């Protein structure tokens, strides 16, 4: 590559010379689109900060999240305790910072399991059609009919209460909407000419599914996952509230809210601070999802 053209021009070239340049160029183009959406950038920054917070939690937290000080319980926000203390005198800010790890664990696990199951079942059902479609979609309907909390109860009864089992239960009940989405997408593309063209080259069903259909379904799934994350965080918090998810004294944000419920009228910050944290992260995911939709739209056009 000659030095006379800038790196930006090289990336945005209309006529890339190598496979690598084309791929990097496509990524850079996506990044430019994403960056032009200011709100999505806000979401991304918040989430990067959240990840940083989770990684460096022990360094950032002023106190241990478990250290109780009954003499200083229910203190309002002050210089010593920036976000106040809870009913056992624990520093709320330290608990929030450590709690970000649990939030990320929940988000990460569900985001890994649910869409993958959904993608697989949905695309196979949509692509195969016939009785395979019928069987898979009826199974999906059955899973849709399961109330999340009841299934979580069953899981907890079988495996013991823990945040891991609760998240597993959430992931296993969260996939049906993804399966339906993936199936709907598959139905629109399975008769497309480019699928017919690949079939005429002798491409097998598995290749068509993995190389041709999945790449087109993944983008809408990613957007959907990002938009669903808020709901997943809230569901996990709800499980914590019922005592089925995070066990005390774990600083899970939802469980912290339910702790603060007792004092909510007189000591608002105990419930409000973790509530604010959940709110911020949920909004950040929604903004990110919105920006990703701009980037991942296969037509690549902004309206």
């Amino acid at each position: 590559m000659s030095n006379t053209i800038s790196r930006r021009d090289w990336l945005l070239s209309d006529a890339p010379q190598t496979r690598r340049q084309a791929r990097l160029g496509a990524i850079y183009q996506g990044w430019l689109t994403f960056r032009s959406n200011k709100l999505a950038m806000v979401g991304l920054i918040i989430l990067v900060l959240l990840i940083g917070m989770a990684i460096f939690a022990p360094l950032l937290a002023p106190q241990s999240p478990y250290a109780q000080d009954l003499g200083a319980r229910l203190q309002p926000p002050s210089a010593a305790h920036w976000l106040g203390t809870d009913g056992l005198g624990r520093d709320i800010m330290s608990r929030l910072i450590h709690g970000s790890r649990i939030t990320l664990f929940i988000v990460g696990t569900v985001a890994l399991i649910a869409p993958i199951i959904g993608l697989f079942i949905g695309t196979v059902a949509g692509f195969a059609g016939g009785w395979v479609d019928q069987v898979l979609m009826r199974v999906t309907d059955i899973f849709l009919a399961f109330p999340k909390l009841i299934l979580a109860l069953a899981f907890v009864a079988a495996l013991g209460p823990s945040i891991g089992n609760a998240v597993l239960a959430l992931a296993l009940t969260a996939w049906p909407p993804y399966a339906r989405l993936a199936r709907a997408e598959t139905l629109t593309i399975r008769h497309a000419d480019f699928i017919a063209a690949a079939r005429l080259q002798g491409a097998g069903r598995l290749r068509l599914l993995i190389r041709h259909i999945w790449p087109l379904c993944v983008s809408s799934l990613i957007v959907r996952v990002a938009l669903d994350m808020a709901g997943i965080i809230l569901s996990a918090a709800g499980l914590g509230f019922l005592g089925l998810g995070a066990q005390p004294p774990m600083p899970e944000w939802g469980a912290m809210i339910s702790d603060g419920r007792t004092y909510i009228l007189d000591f608002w910050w105990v419930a409000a601070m973790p509530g604010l944290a959940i709110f911020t992260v949920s909004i950040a995911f929604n903004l990110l999802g919105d920006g990703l939709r701009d980037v991942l739209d296969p037509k690549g056009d902004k309206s």
Partner: protein
Amino acid sequence: MLNVKDLNVWFGQPPERVDAVKGAEFSVRQGESFGLVGESGSGKSTILRAIAGLIPTWSGDIAVDGKPLKADRRDRAFFKTVQMVFQDPYASLHPRHSVDAVLAETLRLQGMDNIDKRITKLLDDVGLGKGFRFRYPHQLSGGQRQRVAIARALAAEPRLLLLDEPTSALDVSVQAEILNLLADLRAEHGLTYVMVSHDLSVVGHMCDRLAVMQHGRIVEVMSVDALRRGAGEEDYTRHLIRASGGYQPA
């Protein structure tokens, strides 16, 4: 090269069954360019798709190179002999695959070696330079996309090319370029064409013989000379020729 006998193609189950093609019969000789013309919905594209194996619901006999085809299965040898170019170049390229990826996958599926060299050769053949190799479809114009689609069809080095209105989605100046490209490629590689079109002047330019279709039936098979003279034997053919008269070059 291609023999079609008593071909019926239908969609759906009774009572909603639609018979798209009824008793079609024609044959195409090696090296010939054969046109299928008719108005929209006359079943001309359906015949191509049935030959290509994209529609499993047909009866009758289709034989390529003397070998009869089964209803829903096509073997490797078939894909190496017969390829298709689709009508809409915006729908026939995978939006996430670069030109390079499309051609490389095709060549690999067809069991070719020397893939890198072949891609360069294919792009040269269809008049696209090396600069297009790593572009994505959204970085190409309609005519360029159709050239990529033609390159993909040629990758297997087929002998019979099914052309489903390859220029109807393009604007007029690009149409001429693509038609000339197809004519050149045919001369160069000794290809046999079956070309579907609703445009008589395109068929008159490209084909040796043609079949006129109406309501799923082949009304008449005639030579292009007869078409130029306007000498259809059937009323419908004369009607069709008259209707397209305004577009025919003088």
